[in-house]
Each structure stands twice: as structure tokens, then as C-alpha cells.
């Protein structure tokens, strides 16, 4: 019996060492340790061994079994490693991968997503308001006098149909500022419930103007901020716009405001950011180191009044900038014709 056990052990070990692959090793394992394997069958015969020797033989049988199992495990590891070596020889890391599908988001989508994220971090809430709007919201309540050039047929698209006796003609919003009036009217509802007006609005929307040339498309996008509260001053306007410029263009950028003129803000400003190419030293691409980002200003008291907000109690600021403009400024994409953005040429869209 003992001799048989030793012989099985030796045979098994030599088989295991010679096993060529994992499949072969599995067969060897079955041959010795399987239900009707050689060792399994022999162990069943231990009952035939005289009782006084049974314990000794039993211990030997266990040792043999352990030895075979250990050898199999060891060989398994070695064989696995060998397979990897074979695989490694088959892989050319410079061959192309199997690509999952990957499309592209439009540049404007990418910009809007980032801009929204920046403002939401400091408590702004994004909203949407009508793109087809009444004259009253787009001009009248924004303090544009009758006869102002922006109200001309030459600059703004008007919609066919009868005018509303109170709200005037229907038109395509030439700016996101009409959302200011809508937002303030909405806030008044909460004020009537006893809450104070406290607005941090971000309005991103399509706008429309009657011009189409290399630097204008008849449809474009603006993002508008509106902050209304007690004790809002020019210093907050500067703070928010500087925060945006640093977040969007980079921490090393600086901003400044310059006097400008808009109907619906007083004072009004043009906001500049230092040029990223020359770092504000002055170069061909900028004006003495500065690039214009867009307009801003303190909400005109007439606009507050028209929206039903008491200008003695509340003040605020607003800004309205072109999404396409800040996008072009940051990426330094020298797109020679802005209309390309809306041409939907796939050779263009797939670059981003």
C-alpha cells in the first residue's frame, strides 16, 4: 500500500511537471484526484489495511494528496505566466484599439456647459425665457425709447401678425436682456409672498439679429447675468465678472471696466480682459494688451420700475455677453468666418 502511494506520488509529480498547458494539467488532476482518479480509488482501499497500520497509511495518503495538490498549484501558476508570455508576443501595442462610438458636442454646447458651471458655483440659477418675445420685454421695459435704432426693422426681426395693444409687436429677441424683465416679474411674485427680492440669474439663450457677414450670424447665443438685491454696487459687478474671467480664461488674467453706453444700464461698462497671447503687454491681436469681453452695467432705475421693482429699495447689475465671442477669445480659434459655426460642416464639427 505504502509503496503504491509513493509510486502514485512520483508518477503524478512527473506528469504535472511535464504538463504543457492548463487544459493538460486539468486532465492530470482528474486522472489522480478526480472521483475515479488513481489516488482517490487507492485511498478508498485504506479500509482493507490492517487496523494497526491504518493510521500510518492514512497519514501517508494525506501527505501524498497534499504534495500532488501543491505541485498542481505551482504548475498552474507557471503555466498561466507562460500564457501571458505567449499573449505578449501576439500584442502590437501600436495597432489600433477597438473603438467605442464617439461623436462630438457642438462648440457652443461645450462653452455653455462650462459658463453655466462657473456661475452656478457662486449661487446663480440658470433660466430660460421666450425667444419669440413681445416688444415690451425686449425694448420698452428695457428703457429703449421709440425710434431707437435697435427697434428698427433693419436690426431686429419682427414677426408677422397683429400687435398686442399693451405689449406691442412680436419679435425675435435680439439679446438675452428681455429675460431680465421676466426674471424680475417672477421675483415679484415671491416678494408678494413676503420674501425679499434676491436674484442671481444666468440666462443663456439663442438671440437673433438682422446681420450676416464674416463676423455675424443672424442667430447667435448670449449669456446674461442679473443680480438684484439690497446693497448691490459696482464693486459686485466687478467682482463677479472678474471671477468669471479668471475661471474661464485663467487665473492669471486681469479685468477692467471702461465707460460705455447701454439703454438699460446706468452706469454702463465695457468689460475687458487682458490678452492671453501677450499677457497684457500689447500685441497685434489686442488693443494695448486688452480684449473686449462684452457689456455690463448697473440696472437702470427705469428698468427696475417697469418691472415693478422699487429702485429706492433694490439695485442690481447685469451683463450680456456673446457665447461665441468668449469661446473664440479663449480657444484662440482663428475662425475666419463665424458663419462656419452654424454651417454644420462635419469636417468642422468633428474637430472638437
Amino acid at each position, binding site marked *: 500500500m505504502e509503496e503504491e502511494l509513493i509510486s502514485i506520488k512520483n508518477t503524478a509529480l512527473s506528469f504535472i511537471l511535464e504538463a504543457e498547458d492548463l487544459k493538460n494539467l486539468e486532465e492530470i488532476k482528474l486522472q489522480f484526484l478526480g472521483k475515479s482518479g488513481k489516488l482517490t480509488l487507492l485511498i478508498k482501499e485504506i479500509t482493507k489495511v490492517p487496523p494497526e497500520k491504518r493510521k500510518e497509511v492514512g497519514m501517508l495518503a494525506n501527505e501524498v494528496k497534499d504534495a500532488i495538490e501543491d505541485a498542481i498549484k505551482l504548475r498552474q501558476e507557471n503555466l498561466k505566466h507562460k500564457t501571458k508570455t505567449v499573449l505578449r508576443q501576439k500584442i502590437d501595442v501600436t495597432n489600433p484599439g477597438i473603438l467605442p462610438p464617439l461623436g462630438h458636442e457642438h462648440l457652443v454646447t461645450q462653452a455653455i456647459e462650462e459658463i453655466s458651471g462657473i456661475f452656478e458655483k457662486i449661487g446663480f440659477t440658470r433660466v430660460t425665457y421666450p425667444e419669440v418675445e413681445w416688444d415690451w420685454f425686449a425694448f420698452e421695459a428695457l428703457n429703449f425709447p421709440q*425710434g431707437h*435704432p435697435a427697434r428698427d426693422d433693419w436690426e431686429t426681426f419682427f414677426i*408677422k401678425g397683429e400687435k398686442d395693444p399693451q405689449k406691442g409687436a412680436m419679435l425675435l429677441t435680439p439679446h438675452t436682456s428681455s429675460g431680465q424683465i421676466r426674471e424680475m416679474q417672477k421675483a415679484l411674485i415671491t416678494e408678494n409672498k413676503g420674501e425679499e427680492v434676491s436674484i442671481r440669474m444666468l440666462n443663456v439663450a439663442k438671440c437673433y439679429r438682422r446681420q450676416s457677414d464674416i463676423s455675424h450670424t443672424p442667430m447667435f447665443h448670449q449669456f446674461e447675468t442679473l443680480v438684484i438685491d439690497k446693497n448691490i454696487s459696482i464693486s459686485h459687478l466687478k467682482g463677479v465678472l472678474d471671477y468669471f474671467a479668471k475661471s474661464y480664461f485663467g487665473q492669471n488674467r486681469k479685468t477692467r471696466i471702461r*465707460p460705455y453706453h447701454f439703454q438699460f444700464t446706468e452706469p454702463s461698462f465695457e468689460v475687458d480682459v487682458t490678452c492671453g497671447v501677450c499677457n497684457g503687454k500689447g500685441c497685434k491681436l489686442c488693443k494695448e494688451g486688452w480684449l473686449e469681453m462684452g457689456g455690463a452695467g448697473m440696472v437702470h432705475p427705469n428698468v427696475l420700475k417697469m418691472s415693478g421693482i422699487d429702485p429706492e429699495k433694490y439695485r442690481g447689475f447685469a451683463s450680456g455677453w456673446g457665447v461665441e465671442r468668449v469661446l473664440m477669445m479663449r480657444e484662440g480659434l482663428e475662425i475666419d468666418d463665424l458663419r462656419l459655426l452654424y454651417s454644420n460642416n462635419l469636417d468642422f464639427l468633428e474637430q472638437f
Partner: protein
Amino acid sequence: MNIKILDSWLRDYLKTKATPQKIEEVLSETSVSVERLEKYKDDFIYDIEVTTNRPDLMSVTGLAREASTVLNQRGVEARFIPLKLQAEKGQKADFITIKNDPRLVNRICAVVMDVRIKDSPNFIKERLENSGIRSLNNLIDITNYVMRTLGHPSHIFDYDRLSTKLLIIREAQKGEEIRTLDNKEHMLQGGEIVAVNDKNTIVDLLGIMGLENSVVNGNTKRILFFIDNNEKNHIRKASMSLGIRTEAAVLNEKGLDSELSYEALLYGIKLYKEFAQGTVLSEIIDIYPNKLKEKTVTVSQEKINKIIGVEIPAKKSSEILKGLGFENIVENNILKVNVPSFRSGDIEVGEDIAEEVARIYGYGNIPQLLPPLPNNFGPKSYINEFYWEKRARKAMKYWGFTECYTYSMVPGDLLEGPEEGAVEIENPLSEEFVFMRRTLVPSLLKVASENKKRQEIKIFELSKVYLKKENRLPEEKLMLAGIIKKQNASFYEIKGIVEQLIKDFGISDLNFKESERGGLGSSLYIGKEYLGEIEVLNTDLVDFEIDFTIILKYANLKKTYKPISKYPPVVEDISLVAGNEVKTENIINEIKAQSVLVADVYLFDQFENSRSFRITYLNPEKNLSSNEVSSVRKKILTSLREKFKATIK
């Protein structure tokens, strides 16, 4: 609007040691932007963008006055030297009578002069040419020189060619014809301000351009020098509709200081005397029906400081305002400010005064602060419509679609449906942009056809459509549309996109019905609510368009947990042949209806008319016995045979 002027010209009226670079810097930061400063010989040219509310700065003297103040406030010594003009008495002689219409012209100053035509002196030529104005002869150049110096346009007629002693100002009637001095014919729209002679012939298009029939020429001996201060809206309308954008028109449409008109006349007379051997023949005409009213604005220093966000003493404000030409008094921290005539079109309320103080105080000196969080800022939901829009766009991107932005305005042939029911633009830019679209797919199809070279196109757009409503604003509805164009494009590929998107948005009840629109494809529903369409246009083109507002209504991130079964499922396949009229959905529902032990059924293979379903049996309470499974299977097979006349393979 932009103005270009020579530094040496500016310095006729501005005494300062400041360099052109310093003037550029200070003007840009406190007043108007100097867009370029260009060297010219041993001089400089400023190119300045003037905002529409400051036509007073469209002149050399206006800029000198402004620059002197802002330089002084920045600690650079500077002094404004106003133009010195002598009063002119004129002659008692009957040359011309002007009948004005005060609704059209605020003030008319005029004089008849004897002159000699020749070249302008070099300095006038050089100053005008560097200002972007072509030098012609001394008579014309002087009108332009006056305009640049003072910011008020002026005009001259050949008095003898006018051959009338009467000028009447009136509105033009529609259909009247004129020939402007550049020899172009124009048909008037009606409402333009014109001057007619005693025979009712139009001899001038006021505020915009002179006419061929009365303009000076090489033989001119006597001129009518004419300064008209016009009602601005008439000028804007006429100039835009006739497409004549002269500098005079651009200035006049902004509304000019009528106090300047007389100065312009006197300065012109002086120049004609000096450079055209001019003598005054007539009386000095000054018709001034709309005299400017004095304007006062009262504002507290406290309010100014609250707007700016800095504590500025009232004394300082008062001083700044005085420097800018605003006389004022301070009592108990309240400023009473007189608005000078050259700013009367621009200054109305306390905020306007605050702006004047702030810009001179220096915007750069105001600190930068973030506003506090709004007082209603609470645990607002992060999951809003923009969250889902973003998620949909990302999904489409990672399923291989490229996003398009097509125009909201479309031509009639991209509209689908009758034009009467569409939102229509009254003044479209071209035939390409006439209607507001009601559907996105036609725009995407156009994109596909424009990208002809591509074998395979997968594009999408998430945008609004505009549905007309009587007497209300249109309904603006967000739609998601996409198309696949390739050889043998599959309905199922688009269907799969929609199914996965809806599933990812936590919506379960999506149904597909035979298209109700007649075409090949499917109408989609969430529950009973119509969601949109999938259309098979041809073998290579499949599209979908779904109502994103409906998706927003149902989209959710709700999580439900079902305990994972401890017992193993039994999975088996059934293949059957049934008629085409038997829908897969019906078969699946039938199989599921046979027993609660059927946990899942799906079509996993289809070949010709044979369909294979994979069925998962599961009892979450215990191990399934083979008897249980086989009895359910028997029930399933029987019902499929009976109900659908199916042959089981």
C-alpha cells in the same frame, strides 16, 4: 461711431504736457475708447470709438474739453481752450426767407456769403484727410472742418443755382424723387425732412445729403451757408430707408446740441472770410423754435456711494462734476446738478450723475467683491432641465452622434405643413430665413445632404421648435432629433437609441406603435402620452424626433432595490414560426401571462420567419424543480399554438 483726429489739432484746444499715449490711456479708462494711436509724420492720429450717447465727443473741441477734465482728475495738468468767436451782425438785405416746421427742425442758422472757390490750405487738407474726409475745395472743406471742430454738421448751397428767395421745410411725400449731390437718384419713402424752393422743387435732403440741383460747383460765387439742427428720429428713419449713411446723418440721428448751431455758423463765417475771401451779404438768420430747457438733476451723495460701493465725499463729487461742465451746489450731502446743453440728451437721473462721478473717480479704484448668496438660496434641486439636456447630449455623443446647431429660421420648403400655421418673420434677411421651424428633422436632413461626401452620417440636435398660438406668444418646445444615414440604415438602430435614452432617464413605460403619420416607421408614446416619431425615409436614412418637454416630465433618478435572488434561474430558448401579423410584443406578453415564474422574455434571434425567445424562469423563494419548469413550458407552448397558430420548432 468712430472719429479720427490728429493730435496737433486736438492741442489747438487742449493745453497739456501729457503725451498722446497718456491722453489715450486716460480717455480710454474714463471716457471713450481710443482704439488705435497711430504715428503720422511727427504727429499722431487718435482713432476713437464714441458711444451713441456722447455725440458731443464726435468733435475736436468736445474731446479737448473732456480730455482736459479727465487729465486734471488724474493729476496731469491740462486746460481747455474754447473756440473764440466774434459776433456777426450781418447785412440788411433781402436774400432768403426760410419757413421752418418746428416738428422737423429744432434750429436753423444761415447766412448768404460772397466767396471765391479754390483749394483749401494745406493744414485743412491734412487735418481732414487724416480724419477720413476727402478734401475737395475750400467751400466744401470748410463745412467739414466746422463739423469736425464742433461736432455739428453744416451744409452749403450755391445761392445762384437755388434761384429762390424762399425755402420751405417740410416732410417729403412718398414717391417724390431727388438726385443727391453724388448724382444718384432716390425715390423718397415719405417723412424725410426736405427743403423746397418757391416752385415746390426739393433742393435739400436735410441732415443727410445735399442735392445735385443746388450743390456748389466750380462756378459758384455766392453760397447759402446753412446749419440745421434736426429732429433725430426723422433723420434715422430717412437715412436707413434710403441707405445714405453720411457722417452728417450718423451725427444728426443721435440728437445734437442746438446751442452749437449758432457757434457752427459763426465759425464757418470766420473760415470763409479767411480762406475763401468771403463777405457776408445777408442778415444772420437764426430760427430757434425748440430752445433747450434748463435741466437739473438732484441726487444724494449717499445714493452715489451706494451705487459705486465706495465712500466718496460730496465735495469730491461736486468738484468732479464742475470739471465736466456740470454746475452744481451741495446742501446737506445733496447735490443739485445743472446739466450742460451738450449733455442734455444723455443725463436724466441720479444714476447718470453717479456714472460721471464714478468714471472720473476711476473704475480701477473700485474694489472687487463677490455678492453674498441670495437670501432664497436653498437646497434647490440640482436635477433640473439643464441636467437632463446635458445628459441627453452626452449620451448621444457617446453613441457616436455629432451635434448640430441649425438655424431656428427656415425657408418654406423646410417647414413641413401649411405656411399659414407657422410663425413668420416680417422682415427676413433672405429667403433662407423666413419661418420659425416646427420640426428639427428637415434641418438635419439638409445637413446630411450638404455633407455629401460622407458615407455614414450620425447627427443630432436638441433645440426648440415654435408653434403658433393665436394672440399669444408661440409655444417654444424643446425637441431632440437625430438621423442615421448609411447603407442599410436600420429602424432598430434608431429605436435602440431612443429606448436606451428613455431607460437611462428612469422612464419605463415607452411604447412603439405603427406610425400614425402614414409613413414607414413608428409613433412613440410614454404611457398614453405622445412622444414623437421614428421615420424610415428610405433604405439608407432613418430619423427620429421626440418631444423633450415630455421626457422632462417623466425623467427621474429614482432608485429601487430588488433583492437579488438566492436561487438560480432556469434559462431556456423557444423557437417558433408565426405569421407576420403576430407582433413580437404580443408573443412576449402571452408568454409572460402564463406564469409568475416567467421572470423575463426577450427576442434574441430572428431568421426569416422564425423567431427565438429566451425565457428566464425564477422563483425568488426556492429552487425551481424541473417539473415546475416543464409544466409552465407546456402551458406556454399550448397557448402560443392556440393563440397565434404558431409552429414550435
